[in-house]
C-alpha cells in the first residue's frame, strides 16, 4: 500500500533518503590512540591529536578501515580499493580542528542494496549510495552554566561510518524498517553496537514531498534522529508540514531542521547562510587509503551469516514460516538464541533439526518472548538460557511432561532460573504414562459418571472432552494426554 498524504486539494507522495551515522566498534579512535569507551569523565579520553593541538597529526586505525569494508560487503556494496580522506571545513566549538576529516569524492564504499522485510512476504529494496568513514565531533553542553557552553572532546575523533541511502523510501514505515534493517546488519557483523540511546547510531532524514508523477521536491534534512519511532514520527510531521506549505502556494526552503518529539514539530535550525560551503579538499596530513583484493576477501571471509540468508535457511531448511523466521532473524541475539536452542534440543532429543525447529521457534517467540516482554527484559537478560529452554522442550518431546505442565514449569524457570528437570522433580510434575495407573483412574471415573457414559454412547461423542478433563483433574494434570485418549476411547465405546 502506498503512503499518501492527503492535502486539501491534492494527494502527495513522500520521498525519503537517510544518512545513518554509525559508530564503528573499535578500541581506539579513528585517528588517535585515545579510547572510545562511553561515559568517561570529560576530556579524559582525549589525545592531543583529538584536541587539535598545533602540530598534532592523524594516523589511521586499521580496524576502522576493516569494519568499513565489512559493512560495505554486508550490504553487497562496491568496495573501493582506493579512497581519500577529505577535510570538511566549518567552525564549531566542539570541532577542534576547525574541520572534520571525512570522505567526500572517493568514499571507501560505493553503491549497494539493502532488502527490507515489509511483512506478508513482501520485500523492498533500498539502494545504498555510499558509505564513508569520518570522525565524530566532541560534545557541547549548553545547559550547565548560564553564560557558558561546556565542551567535552571525549567523542572527538571517534570513528563513524556514514551510510547514505538513495532516496528510495516512500513511507515512514519503510524508513523505519530501513533503520531497523541497517541496525540489524551492523549488529550481525559487529561493526557497530547499534545503540541508539547512547548515540552510537543516529539518522539524518531527508524528506521531500511531491504530487504523484511530479519530479522530486525540495528536501529538508532532519538532523540526528535517535530512534526508529522518531524516524517514523518526524517524517509524518515533516511531510505534512511541507504539504501544507505547498497547498498554500508556498515553496519549501532546502534547510536543516530539528525534530522536537515533545512538541511534535520540526523547526529550522539556526540559519547558517554559508554554513554549507564546507570547502572540502583532500587532507594533506593523510595519504589515500589503499588495499588489495586479499584484504577485501579476508574481510568477506570474516562475515557471519547475514539476516537475509539466515532467514531463507530457516524457512527452507528448517521449515519455519516466513513470519516466525523474520522475527527470529531481526535481531542477532534472537537468532543466536534460537540457533543455540535448536542445537541443544537436537543434541538432547537426537531428532532431526527440521523436526523440532518449529516447536523450538514457537516456544521462543511465544513463551519466552512473551515473558521477556512482560518483564521488560531483553533476550540478553533472559533468566532462562538457550540450553535451559532446550531442557524444557526435550522434556515435552520425550513425554516427561505435557505441554500444559510445561507452561507452569517455564513460569517457575523464568522466576527462579532453575533447570526444567529440577523443577519437574521437585514439584513431582512428571507426566503419568503408566497405562495400568491411568486405566484404573479411567475405570473409576467411568464408574461414577454412568449418566455421561450413556449420553456418550447415545451419540454425544463430544463428551470425551469431559472424561479427559476428569482424568487430568484426578492426576493433577500429569496424565499423558496421548495415553489417556488411547485408553479412554475404547472403554467409552464399550
Amino acid at each position, binding site marked *: 500500500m502506498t503512503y499518501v498524504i492527503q492535502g486539501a486539494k491534492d494527494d502527495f507522495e513522500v520521498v525519503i533518503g537517510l544518512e545513518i551515522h554509525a559508530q564503528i566498534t*573499535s*578500541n*581506539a579512535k579513528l585517528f*588517535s*590512540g*585515545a*579510547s572510545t569507551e562511553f561515559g568517561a*569523565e*570529560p*576530556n*579524559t*579520553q*582525549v*589525545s*592531543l*591529536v583529538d*584536541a587539535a593541538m598545533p602540530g598534532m597529526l592523524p*594516523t*589511521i*586505525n*586499521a*580496524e*576502522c*578501515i576493516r569494519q568499513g569494508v565489512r559493512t560495505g560487503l554486508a550490504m553487497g556494496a562496491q568496495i573501493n580499493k582506493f579512497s*581519500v580522506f577529505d577535510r570538511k571545513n566549518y*567552525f564549531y*566549538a566542539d570541532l577542534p580542528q576547525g574541520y572534520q576529516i571525512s570522505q567526500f569524492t572517493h568514499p571507501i564504499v560505493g553503491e549497494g542494496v539493502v532488502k527490507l522485510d515489509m511483512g506478508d512476504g513482501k520485500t523492498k529494496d533500498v539502494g545504498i549510495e555510499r558509505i564513508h568513514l569520518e570522525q565524530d565531533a566532541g560534545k*557541547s*553542553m*549548553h545547559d*550547565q*552554566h*548560564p*553564560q*557558558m*557552553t*561546556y*565542551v*567535552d*572532546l571525549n567523542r572527538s575523533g571517534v570513528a563513524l561510518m556514514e551510510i547514505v541511502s538513495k532516496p528510495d523510501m516512500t513511507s515512514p514505515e519503510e524508513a523505519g524498517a530501513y533503520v531497523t534493517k541497517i541496525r540489524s546488519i551492523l549488529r550481525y557483523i559487529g561493526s557497530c553496537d547499534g545503540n541508539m540511546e547512547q548515540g552510537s547510531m543516529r539518522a539524518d532524514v531527508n524528506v521531500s514531498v511531491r504530487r504523484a508523477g511530479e519530479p522530486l521536491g525540495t528536501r529538508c534534512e532532519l538532523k540526528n534522529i535517535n530512534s526508529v519511532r522518531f524516524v517514523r514520527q518526524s517524517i509524518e510531521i515533516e511531510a505534512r508540514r511541507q504539504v501544507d506549505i505547498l497547498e498554500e502556494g508556498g515553496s519549501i526552503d532546502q534547510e536543516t531542521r*530539528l525534530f522536537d518529539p515533545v512538541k511534535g514539530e520540526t523547526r529550522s*535550525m*539556526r540559519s547558517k547562510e*554559508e554554513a554549507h*560551503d564546507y*570547502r572540502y579538499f*583532500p587532507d594533506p596530513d*593523510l*595519504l*589515500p*587509503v*589503499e588495499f588489495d583484493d586479499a584484504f577485501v576477501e579476508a574481510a568477506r571471509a570474516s562475515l557471519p551469516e547475514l539476516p537475509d540468508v539466515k532467514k531463507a535457511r530457516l524457512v527452507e531448511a528448517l521449515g519455519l514460516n516466513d513470519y516466525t523466521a523474520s522475527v527470529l532473524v531481526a535481531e542477532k541475539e534472537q537468532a543466536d538464541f534460537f540457533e543455540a536452542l535448536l542445537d541443544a534440543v537436537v543434541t538432547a532429543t537426537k531428532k532431526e533439526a527440521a523436526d523440532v525447529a518449529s516447536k523450538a521457534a514457537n516456544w521462543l517467540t511465544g513463551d519466552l518472548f512473551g515473558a521477556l516482554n512482560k518483564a521488560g527484559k531483553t533476550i540478553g537478560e533472559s533468566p532462562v538460557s538457550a540450553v535451559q529452554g532446550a531442557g524444557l522442550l526435550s522434556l515435552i518431546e520425550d513425554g516427561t511432561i505435557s505441554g500444559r505442565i510445561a507452561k507452569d514449569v517455564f513460569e517457575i524457570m523464568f522466576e527462579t532460573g532453575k533447570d526444567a528437570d529440577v523443577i519437574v522433580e521437585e514439584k513431582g510434575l512428571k507426566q503419568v504414562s503408566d497405562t495400568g495407573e491411568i486405566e484404573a483412574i479411567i475405570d473409576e471415573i467411568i464408574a461414577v459418571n454412568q449418566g455421561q457414559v450413556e449420553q456418550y454412547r447415545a451419540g454425544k461423542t463430544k463428551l470425551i472432552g469431559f472424561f479427559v478433563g476428569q482424568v487430568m483433574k484426578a492426576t493433577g494434570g500429569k496424565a499423558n494426554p496421548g495415553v489417556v485418549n488411547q485408553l479412554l476411547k475404547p472403554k467409552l465405546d464399550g
Partner: protein
Amino acid sequence: MSNIDTKTVAKIARLSRIKVADDKLEPLAGELNNILGWVEQLEEVNTDNVEPMSSVVDVKLRWRADQVTDGNKQESVLKNAPNSEYGFFAVPKVIE
C-alpha cells in the same frame, strides 16, 4: 576570471571567521584581485588527462593497530585553555 568585490571579501572573511572592518574590505578586495589575477595564468596550462597530485612522495598510508595508547591526560589537554571548568573547555554560550 576573478573579480572579487567587497561582498565576496566579506563572505570569505565570514567563512574564515575573521572580522574585517568595513573600510578594509575595499583595499583587501584590491589585494586579493591582484594575487588571484596573477595566479590565473595557470589557465594557460593544458591539464587535460592530468591527475591532481594526491601525495608528494611515493609513500603509502600506514595503518595503526586498534589499541588504546593515548588519553587520560585531562590536565595536559586543558592546560593552555583560556577558560576551563569542571574538566570542560568553557566558551561563550551557544544558542542553538
